[in-house]
């Protein structure tokens, strides 16, 4: 199986959220949910020394993320119907709407908040890697829209080289699900389990 995945270059991302809006527009999503989110992560503190000088180790960085089409997806494991499934050719995780009962187990289980399930939609919905565009030789709409060229999507052995799988705060340790989100880290990025804050929490929830 060829496993497709995303690559995110945090040194190029400006946090403009064009990827998120391009996805919403292309997928015709309602205002209250989104397949891709751009998280604004921040932390650190200010200290004053004895002489009265202030120093800081504060930081901020962006993380643009949708479904990570994991090697061991928590959503497919939890799904009782098999509606949430991993494509055997591409490794893309997507929803079979006809099978989905809308129980929400996939959304509960996913540590990346990728699936959304509601009565209004009537089934689980999430990023499918723009499978139809990729099949036609194009890039997912988020990748194509990114003005900073910070996003890539390809079979994982063809992605640009970086620092490996996403293992940064606020994400879980990569060994929970094996996310196919690979990173080039910026200097601000903090390791998993760092006590970071999300400054745009209302925007991403």
């Amino acid at each position, binding site marked *: 199986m060829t496993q497709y995945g995303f690559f995110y270059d945090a040194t190029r991302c400006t946090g403009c959220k064009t990827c998120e809006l391009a996805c919403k527009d292309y997928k015709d999503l309602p205002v209250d949910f989104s397949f891709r989110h751009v998280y604004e*992560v921040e932390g650190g503190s200010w200290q004053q020394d004895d002489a009265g000088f202030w120093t800081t180790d504060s930081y901020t960085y962006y993380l643009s993320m949708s479904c990570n089409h994991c090697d061991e997806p*928590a959503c497919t*494991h*939890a*799904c*009782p*119907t*098999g*509606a949430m499934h991993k494509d055997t050719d591409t490794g893309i995780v997507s929803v079979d709407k*006809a*099978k*989905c*009962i*809308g*129980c*929400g*187990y996939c959304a*509960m*289980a*996913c*540590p*990346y*908040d990728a699936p959304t*399930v*509601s*009565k209004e*939609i*009537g*089934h689980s919905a999430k990023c499918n890697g723009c499978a139809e565009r990729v099949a036609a030789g194009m890039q997912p709409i988020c990748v194509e829209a990114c003005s900073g060229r910070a996003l890539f999507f390809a079979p994982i052995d063809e992605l640009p080289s970086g620092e490996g799988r996403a293992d940064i*705060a*606020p*994400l*879980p*340790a990569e060994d*929970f*699900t094996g996310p196919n989100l690979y990173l080039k880290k910026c200097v601000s990025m903090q390791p998993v389990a760092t*006590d*970071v*804050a*999300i400054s745009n*929490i209302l925007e991403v*929830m």
Partner: protein
Amino acid sequence: MATAFHELPLALFTTLASIGAGAFISLAAAFFTAKFSDGQLARIDKLTLVPAIVVVVGFIAAFFHLANPMAAFGVFGGLGRSPMSNELAVAMLFAVAMATYVIMGLAGKLGGARKGLVCATAVLAVLFAVFMGLAYGMATIPTWSTPWPVAQMIGYALLGGAAMGACVLAFSDALDAAVDGTFKSALIAFAVIGAVLAVAGLALMYSGAGSVSNAFVAGTDLAAGASGAFYVAVACLVLACAAVIAAALGKGGNAASAIAVILAFAGILAGRFVFYALQISVGISF
């Protein structure tokens, strides 16, 4: 607590299913330890429809949780892999045994098959409770991925079932005959063990949530938001246990067992709200 109220249908399902299914555990113990007249047996069999209806109402409540219930026949597709498929498969086995037992009882055809059938139904009721607890065993949700949800569900089935079982016997004019012998100790044991498992399981989960957090939500905040429901659950479960003990000791008449059912329902439902309120992911959850 907003998450918890969103899960109201599931909270109702797990509450009603544990009380209704648990009743068959107490009834099985009664049939193995007490002697009933034919008239009492006939009345018990008629009233056994009540816990069966409680279970069915629980199943109906679960349907209201689904965004697309029309596809529900596919829920067994994940058997062996999905904890939810496993839970529902055991639920179906229990429902078949329960329906067989209740229908044969209503038709007056249980005869010598009574003990065997009620015993099978009781065993499946325990398994159903275990699998309801296991249904949320997701490694990505550390507050749920512990033995405590299973302890809670077994406790709810034993305590709620003792209350409902005592109620069925009391309103069949058969509780006095039943508690004349060793069933008295059995009923008290179910109530006490059930209350201990339920309260301890809930308290350990509740206190454990304080050490879990992600960048979006802190377990301490979730626990603080659910504190009212937690204390209501503990109080109602303890009082339900006391009411079952009163009924077993022949005090309080039919009212004691009826009050026990109401308290058990309130306590378990509050406990289920606490459970859903403490959902916190290893990654992103709100």
